[in-house]
C-alpha cells in the first residue's frame, strides 16, 4: 500500500519546512500562501468541481451556495444523464417587493417564461433548450427559465479550503505548492528578491507538468475519441 493520495494541506507546509531546511518562524505565513496556491489551483488548473443539489424556488431563482466562486454548469437529470441548462443573458432578473415580501411582477417580465418556440420543423437550425438560466453575481442568484419549485444540480468551483473539517489536497500537487511557496517567499525574504523571476518560472513549469498529469489521455481515451468521429459502414 502506497502513501495516501490526499493529504492535509498543513502537511504540505510541514514537509516544505522540513525539505528546504526552513526555520519554523514563518510556518503560519507559508500556510496562508499554501491555501492561496491551492485556491488558485482549484480556480485555474484543476478539474475538481463541487456537484450539489440546489432548489429552484417558486420565484424561479436559485440562491448560490456561499462557497461558490465560479460557475461550471447547471444541469438536471434526464434518463440517467445530466442535461445542461443554456445561458440566456437577458432573462429578467429584477424582483419586486410588496411590503417586506420579495416576489415577481409579471408586468415587468419578472418570472415570465421565454416564448422562444422549440424548433423541430424542416430546416430548423440547431436545438432550443427548454431550460435556461442567467447568473446575477451581485445578488448571488441564478435566475431560471423553464422550471420552478424543483431540485436541480449545480456544478461549481470552490476555493477548496474547508471552513470546518480537514482541507485535504491531492498529494500529486505537492511540487506545485512547493514551487509556489518558493516563489512567494521571495516577496518577504529580502535576500531572495533577485531569485523571484527564476522561481516564478519554476512555478510555471511545475504547473505545466501538473496539468500534463491531469489532462493527458491514455490509449483507450484516444481510441474512443477517434472512433467517436468515425461512422460505421458496410464492408463491400
Amino acid at each position, binding site marked *: 500500500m502506497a502513501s495516501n493520495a490526499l493529504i492535509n494541506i*498543513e502537511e504540505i507546509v*510541514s514537509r516544505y519546512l522540513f525539505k528546504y531546511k526552513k526555520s519554523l518562524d514563518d510556518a503560519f505565513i507559508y500556510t496562508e500562501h499554501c491555501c492561496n496556491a491551492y485556491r488558485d489551483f482549484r480556480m485555474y488548473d484543476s478539474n475538481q468541481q463541487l456537484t450539489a443539489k440546489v432548489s429552484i424556488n417558486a420565484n424561479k431563482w436559485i440562491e448560490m451556495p456561499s462557497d461558490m466562486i465560479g460557475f461550471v454548469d447547471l444541469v438536471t437529470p434526464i434518463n440517467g444523464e445530466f442535461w445542461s441548462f443554456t445561458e440566456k443573458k437577458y432573462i429578467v432578473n429584477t424582483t419586486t417587493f410588496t411590503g417586506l415580501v420579495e416576489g415577481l411582477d409579471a408586468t415587468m417580465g419578472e418570472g415570465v417564461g421565454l416564448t422562444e418556440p422549440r424548433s423541430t420543423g424542416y430546416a430548423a437550425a440547431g436545438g432550443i433548450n427548454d431550460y435556461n438560466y442567467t447568473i446575477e453575481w451581485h445578488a448571488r442568484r441564478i435566475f431560471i427559465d423553464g422550471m420552478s419549485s424543483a431540485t436541480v444540480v449545480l456544478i461549481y468551483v470552490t476555493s477548496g479550503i474547508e471552513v470546518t473539517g480537514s482541507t485535504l489536497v491531492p498529494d500529486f500537487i505537492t511540487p506545485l505548492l512547493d514551487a509556489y511557496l518558493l516563489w512567494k517567499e521571495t516577496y518577504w525574504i529580502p535576500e531572495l528578491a533577485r531569485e523571484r523571476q527564476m522561481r516564478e518560472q519554476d512555478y510555471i513549469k511545475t504547473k505545466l507538468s501538473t496539468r500534463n498529469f491531469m489532462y493527458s489521455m491514455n490509449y483507450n481515451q484516444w481510441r474512443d475519441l477517434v472512433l467517436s468521429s468515425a461512422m460505421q459502414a458496410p464492408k463491400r
Partner: protein
Amino acid sequence: MIKSEIRSIIRNLLPKYEEIERFHDKIIDAAIEKALAEFYNIVFLRSPLELALYTKQFGYTTPLAVVQEAGTTLYYTEYPFMADGVTRVSTIPVPDKASGVRRISAIAQGGVSFYPMDAREMDLIMAGSYTDYVTSKFGYCARRTRIEYYNLSAAIIAAGVRCDLLIPFSKYEETDTVLVPELTGDDGAGFTDRVLKILSNVRPTELYENKQFEEGK
C-alpha cells in the same frame, strides 16, 4: 563545562594585582553573560537552527502548566522557576519570532508541533485568514515574562508543555552544564578573550581592610 567551572576559568585568567582577586562573582558572571549572549547572536546570524544546541530544557520531568488569563482569555505558560523556587528564568532575545524560546513540545514526543509567531501575526490570523480555518498547528508567542499560545488543544492545556529555552548565564544553576559556542573573531579572540576584554574595562572592586568584598561598590 559546568557554570562554576566557567567562572573559575575566567577568575584564574584575570591578572592578579594583589594576593586576592578583586572581582566579585556577579561581575564575572555579568561579563560572561554578555559575551555569551553576543556569541548566541553570532550563531543565530550564521544559522538560526543551530541555536537549539545551546538551550536548556525545562518541563521534561514535570510539565510546565498552561493556564488561562481571565481577562484576555489567553492561554500562557510562565517561564519556569530556578532551583530556588523563587526566581524565574528569563530568555535571551534573538531577532526572530521564537526569540529565546527555541522549541516547545507536547509532553509525549511526536505528532504535534508548536510554531513561533509574533503578536501581530496572532492578531492577523485570528482576524480572518485561511490559516485560521485550516490549521491545527499550535502557535506560541515568546513574551517578556511568559509564553502565549494560539489554537491550543484541550489535551495540551490539560497535560502541559515542555520547552527549550535560551537563557542567560545568570539563570543557570551552579551545577548546570553551559554549552559555549566555539567561535573566534577575525582577531583570533575566543570566548575567554572576550570575557577578559569586557572585564579589563571594569575597575577592580575596592576591598575592606580585611580584604573582604564590599557589596555595592
